[in-house]
């Protein structure tokens, strides 16, 4: 026994040694700053002077801050693109799952925007959205439509960024759907065919339920990603768009923190963002438990 426990002790020590870096990293660069954000959100932190406790003042100010409301509204508005992208991605994946020649090539082409840097893509689309010479309006011109100056118009700037985000993310969702579709056993479809089910019935009874976990995964990760949208906004509309109509929550927070050095105030936004994502994740867990229960 002593020999064994010595071995066990050694294994334990090495185990902790191997686990130490990510644990230390998490404590130092995630947990500690998160707690500090929470603490800072209750102060008038400006990075220079003393941090004075001011209670809920930052949160109260946010509540009546019109720019913050706008930024929140814009952020959620742009999430309308999520279901649109989802439907397109599923249709695409179903099209690619039929064994049509060229599937690999299509997969690669649709995936290229995903691997491209968001900064470069934003620059490209900013140019494509140019009112007079941009690709988008020249395309619309083929159909006799006079397109707006997309990014300079407060009504079109959000849909414009949304369309770009759909274009960029489509390949990713498609790939996830395709993987899910390929894992569905052929026998389900053969049975449905024998039963004389039509395409729509097959979709409703087999395909949709089978890809539901992936749909769920995409929705949740897109909401989490969408709530942090920043790069597109910063590059395409460096001032937050006409009448601040494209500024996102993180964009506003970034401006307040690193432009105005209202660190306490932006920490309050940081806390709200973390809270939002925490709730979304929690809902995901709860629903996931429920739906996996349904299947069994």
């Amino acid at each position, binding site marked *: 026994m002593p020999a064994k426990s010595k071995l066990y002790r050694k294994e334990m020590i090495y185990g902790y040694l191997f686990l130490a870096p990510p644990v230390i990293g998490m404590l130092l660069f*995630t947990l500690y700053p998160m707690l500090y954000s929470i603490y800072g959100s209750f102060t008038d932190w400006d990075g220079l002077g003393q941090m004075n406790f001011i209670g809920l003042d930052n949160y109260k100010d946010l509540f009546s801050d019109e720019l913050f409301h706008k930024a929140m509204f814009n952020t959620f508005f742009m999430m309308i693109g999520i279901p649109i992208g989802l439907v397109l991605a599923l249709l695409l994946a179903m099209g690619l799952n039929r064994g049509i020649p*060229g599937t690999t090539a299509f997969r690669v082409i*649709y995936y290229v925007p995903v*691997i*491209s840097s968001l*900064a470069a893509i934003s620059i*490209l689309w900013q140019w494509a959205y140019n009112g007079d010479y941009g690709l988008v309006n020249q395309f619309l011109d083929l159909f006799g439509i006079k397109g707006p100056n997309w990014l300079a118009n407060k009504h079109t700037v959000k849909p414009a960024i949304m369309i770009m985000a759909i274009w960029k993310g489509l390949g990713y969702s498609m790939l996830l759907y395709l*993987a899910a579709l390929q894992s569905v056993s052929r026998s389900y479809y053969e049975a449905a065919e024998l039963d004389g089910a039509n395409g729509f019935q097959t979709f409703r009874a087999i395909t949709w339920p089978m890809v539901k976990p992936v749909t769920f995964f995409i929705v949740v990760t897109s909401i989490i990603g969408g709530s942090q949208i*920043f790069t597109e906004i910063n590059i395409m509309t460096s001032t937050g768009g006409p009448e601040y109509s494209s500024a996102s929550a993180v964009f506003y927070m970034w401006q307040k923190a690193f432009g105005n050095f209202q660190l306490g105030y932006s920490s309050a936004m940081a806390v709200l963002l973390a809270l939002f994502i925490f709730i979304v994740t929690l809902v995901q867990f709860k629903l996931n438990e429920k739906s996996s229960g349904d299947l069994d």
Partner: protein
Amino acid sequence: MVLSSRKWSAANILIFILLCIGAVFMIAPLLWMVSTSFKTKMEVFALPPVWIPEEWLTAKYSEIWTAGPLLSGIKNSVIVAVSVTLIGTFTSSLAAFALAKLQVPHKNKIFLMLLSSIMIPYPAVMIPQFIMFSNVGWNDSLLPLIVPGLFGNVFMIFFLRQYLTSVPNAIIEAAKIDGSSYFGIYAKIVFPLIKPAVAAQLILWFMGVWNDYLAPTIYLTSEENYTLQLVIGNFNAMYAIQTDYPLIMAASVISLLPMLIVFLVFQKQIIESVAISAVKG
């Protein structure tokens, strides 16, 4: 798959055409970017649009190197992405090995704790992180972009731990009896076995670091320290006023090229490992 006998049914032909139209929409903006980078200013503002320039001007591709710190941007991005992914992969895979194969008390609790830290988004911690790094004088250097990554990546730990469950315990037990050290087991047995998964995860991580934009905007103030993404962002801000779109597009093409090449070379591995993440996630 099975439909080979009716590969070219009417429905499939229709779908094929739709997929082609979709592919055109996906690729056209990128081709537009490439074509613009070779155009004259006249052609850029021509109506109707010019897709194929009269003459493929390569002048902008030599001009970009002096028009902004493009070369140092590439260098900085390489430094950040290589050091983060190489060292981070090492620490991540060691941790995954400990979590999957070693008897460590409370390891599941530790794993859960690491996993739950994924929930905390970067913007929520960026302000205190910024102050932390300012206090140690790392502002306007690459260190704040590098150091946090060296401690590992929870996503990678998650996937490698998952992957390691397929490695039989008996191999590791046998090596222990043979008197191998724990690091020896990792280096000689575990790592070679999980190499494909490590490679795929490393590529995905590399792409993420390479394309990062928010963190560099916070830390880097002098141009010579900019990463590539900041450099082209700056190109865009500076030269759009002069409507020098060929120049901007040429710089953007250069910034896309490395990842595009990586993707085309490793597309099979990348696509597979992304697909796995969905099924497992």
